[in-house]
């Protein structure tokens, strides 16, 4: 492989890594509610993504109305959010509003196992019933440890 090919190969690898990292960093947005009716955007992720094990992170949930782009507040008592670990254990989160961020909700946790975690958001936004599950990837924090 000559020097030019090597540079191109490295560039391609770098671009691929960036796009994969981009996916890992992105929160997931879903629109719920029937078209023509009241629709809401539910955005789910975790704090400080990409998330590694043994590091304090937490739920990062935001809800907005589609029509007005208005954050929807007060849903901490109408939504039940659970997180299910790769091993199948499920925990119900104590969702609370994030101060100074209308329409945003959180709860804290430290994840101990790498793999795919399912965050399930179930309940009501106004009169609209929702039940959505968002898979989130968590990487092994062991590789980051030093010394």
């Amino acid at each position, binding site marked *: 492989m000559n020097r030019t090919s090597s540079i191109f190969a490295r560039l391609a690898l770098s671009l691929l890594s960036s796009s994969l990292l981009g996916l890992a960093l992105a929160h997931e947005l879903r629109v719920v509610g029937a078209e023509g009716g009241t629709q809401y955007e539910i955005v789910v992720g975790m704090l400080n993504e990409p998330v590694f094990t043994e590091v304090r992170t937490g739920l990062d949930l935001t809800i907005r109305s589609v029509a007005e782009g208005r954050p929807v*507040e007060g*849903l901490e*008592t*109408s939504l039940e959010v659970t997180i299910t670990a790769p091993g199948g254990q499920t925990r119900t989160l104590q969702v609370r509003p994030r101060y100074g961020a209308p329409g945003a909700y959180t709860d804290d946790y430290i994840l101990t196992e790498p793999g795919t975690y399912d965050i399930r958001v179930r*309940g*009501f*936004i*106004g*009169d609209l019933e929702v039940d959505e599950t968002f898979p989130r990837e968590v990487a092994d924090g062991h590789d980051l440890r030093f010394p």
Partner: protein
Amino acid sequence: MQRRRTTLRALAAAVLLTAARPALAHAEIETVDPPRDALLDVAPLRIRLVFGEPVETRFSLFKVYPLASASLGPADLVDPDFLRLNGLAAALVPGALSARDDADVRVDRGLIDTADRSADVTVALAPDLPVGAYVVMWRVLAIDGHTTQGHAVFVVRAPAQGEAE
């Protein structure tokens, strides 16, 4: 000189910690009585709200509204789905907290036994609230200058068949 520096650093840390404390706490609700999602046989005469730190009651807002919705039926008052009632309440609260001239809707009758600054707030209710779902809502100014808001739902239930009289 070294000792003075250490003392100054300790003082600076203490000031920062003290200054940071209120910003971390705000006036989050700690207790609601009757509790959130209570299903009551008898209508309460008052609501007690306890916050994590004192609030300026004169600059705070406390209201209680009936939760009226065309989609609520009698069954919702016997075996309520509180997630749903709270969803309806969340839709009601922003408008209700901003509303003026809503005395004909409100079922609260002002604060009782509450100081100007207090973490413990009692709201009087109209006597003999009829069967129904109700939303207690607040927007409070904490003594740290931050505002928070929230709500809680309770239901005065209809007697089940064969239970009344």
